[in-house]
């Protein structure tokens, strides 16, 4: 029978599983390309010009949202996108349910390369337990058995359907892109200790160990089920990573321990207060001369008006309540409030490393930043990642 992935935490997929996954992936791609295209056209061709004629042009993402709400292309896009999102988790849960006991046993094998340190006493933040984030039932933390990995398995499998290949073969493109960006842009900077915050299943953690084979790589998350899965997955791929259950807003690490602190698609799931606490902690655990990087959604002030409306959809309808507030922040200011110097702020848009390869990527790191319809967004036509951070003096 077919396996979902090329590592030992994979599940077997029946023909029926594969057909349904393929269908939902196609449906998502249809919504994000065709239906999103119709919606944009309806705005640019009809709703936008109508408001201009009335002398009341739509000048904010909120105004566009209000004007589009009663329109059929918006209702259809939103309703189908919601269903498609629900179906992602639905179609992958069957295979995970069937094999959960085996997966949980497999994950309990003794470690060979890295480590897993859980802290059952750690209180989980409400921002994680209080909502089923991006409509995933039980999100990252729910325990359904002893030594449970189900949330991690669902996550790994859901990316296959959700991202229809856009995150790279091992879902590792963001981590591969950022680590190779650093390696190529700052060749004299050779980190020996690297920290990933909010690592989930470690898919974007592992490429760091490949890019910097001599570095010690540590990854933290608050949720045990995804960490157990991350650890077992990394072990099976033979990549040494120390996974630790920890809250990024109050880390157990000593001061000045890491050369790199990074996160990927993490901050936008935090309430603003936690973002501020996390950045202060990141500053504290960074060594002088070290660097902080966040791979994130691009800030509102850099993106075209319509894109800002379009991106905000998730915060209204996809159980991403903190996403809108995060994007409104001045990212440089977030970092200076945490202790970094304004002059040390860096930001970059990057093409995807595992898609375009070393040579084209090496060339791209010298080009200017591009903020357009592909920046920081999942689109069947491709994606350009966005990241920001700062050096610590």
């Amino acid at each position: 029978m077919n396996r979902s992935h090329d590592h030992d935490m994979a599940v077997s997929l029946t023909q029926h599983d594969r057909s349904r996954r393929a269908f939902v992936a196609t449906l998502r791609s249809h919504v994000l390309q065709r239906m999103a295209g119709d919606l944009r056209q309806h705005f640019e061709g009809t709703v936008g010009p109508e408001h201009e004629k009335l002398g009341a042009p739509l000048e904010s993402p909120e105004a566009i949202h209000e004007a589009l709400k009663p329109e059929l292309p918006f209702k259809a896009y939103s309703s189908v996108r919601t269903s498609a999102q629900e179906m992602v988790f639905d179609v992958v849960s069957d295979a995970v349910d069937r094999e959960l006991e085996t997966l949980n046993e497999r994950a309990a094998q003794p470690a060979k390369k890295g480590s897993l340190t859980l802290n059952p006493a750690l209180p989980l933040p409400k921002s994680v337990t209080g909502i089923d984030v991006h409509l995933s039932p039980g999100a990252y933390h729910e325990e359904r058995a002893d030594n449970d990995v189900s949330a991690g398995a669902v996550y790994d499998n859901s990316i296959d359907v959700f991202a229809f290949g856009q995150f790279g073969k091992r879902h590792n493109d963001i981590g591969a892109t950022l680590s190779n960006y650093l390696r190529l842009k700052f060749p004299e900077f050779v980190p020996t200790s690297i920290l990933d915050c909010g690592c989930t299943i470690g898919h974007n953690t592992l490429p760091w160990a490949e890019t910097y084979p001599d570095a010690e790589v540590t990854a933290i998350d608050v949720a045990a089920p995804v960490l157990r899965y991350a650890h077992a997955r990394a072990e099976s791929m033979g990549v040494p990573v120390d996974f630790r259950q920890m809250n990024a807003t109050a880390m157990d690490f000593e001061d000045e321990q890491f050369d790199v602190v990074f996160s990927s698609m993490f901050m936008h799931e935090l309430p603003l207060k936690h973002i501020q606490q996390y950045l202060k902690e990141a500053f504290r655990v960074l060594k002088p001369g070290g660097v902080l990087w966040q791979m994130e959604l691009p800030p509102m002030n850099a993106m075209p008006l319509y894109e800002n409306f379009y991106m905000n959809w998730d915060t209204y309808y996809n159980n991403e309540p903190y996403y809108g507030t995060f994007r409104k922040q001045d990212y440089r200011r977030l970092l200076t409030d945490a202790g970094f110097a304004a002059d040390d702020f860096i930001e970059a848009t990057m093409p995807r490393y595992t898609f375009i390869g070393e040579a084209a990527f090496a060339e791209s790191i010298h080009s200017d930043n591009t903020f357009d319809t592909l920046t920081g967004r999942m689109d069947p036509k491709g994606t350009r990642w966005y990241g920001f951070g700062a050096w610590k003096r």
Partner: protein
Amino acid sequence: MSTRRIPRKRRGQRHQFFDADGVDEVLSCVLRLTSEVSALSERLYLTERVLEAQGLNVANEVERYALSEAEESALSAERQRLIETVLAQLGASAQGAESIEDDAGGPS
């Protein structure tokens, strides 16, 4: 802890996008149904190709085939699963679906 099934419904209310009640849910049902139909026709396609490779004319054989009782109850269970999947957003419960199985005869 005994192993629990992964929940298929998330917590919290679904958003209503269409003005009339139920339209979003019906659309969700249709999409789920379409995914099942798509999976089914892919399976049928594969089956026919496999059989063809064995030299079998499927169409004739299908018409003549008689189902055993065990097969009928397996098909019935599959029908029940299909209904639960299609109606998932309306919260059709397992109990509701059981009575459908009780009432249903075999496939005609």
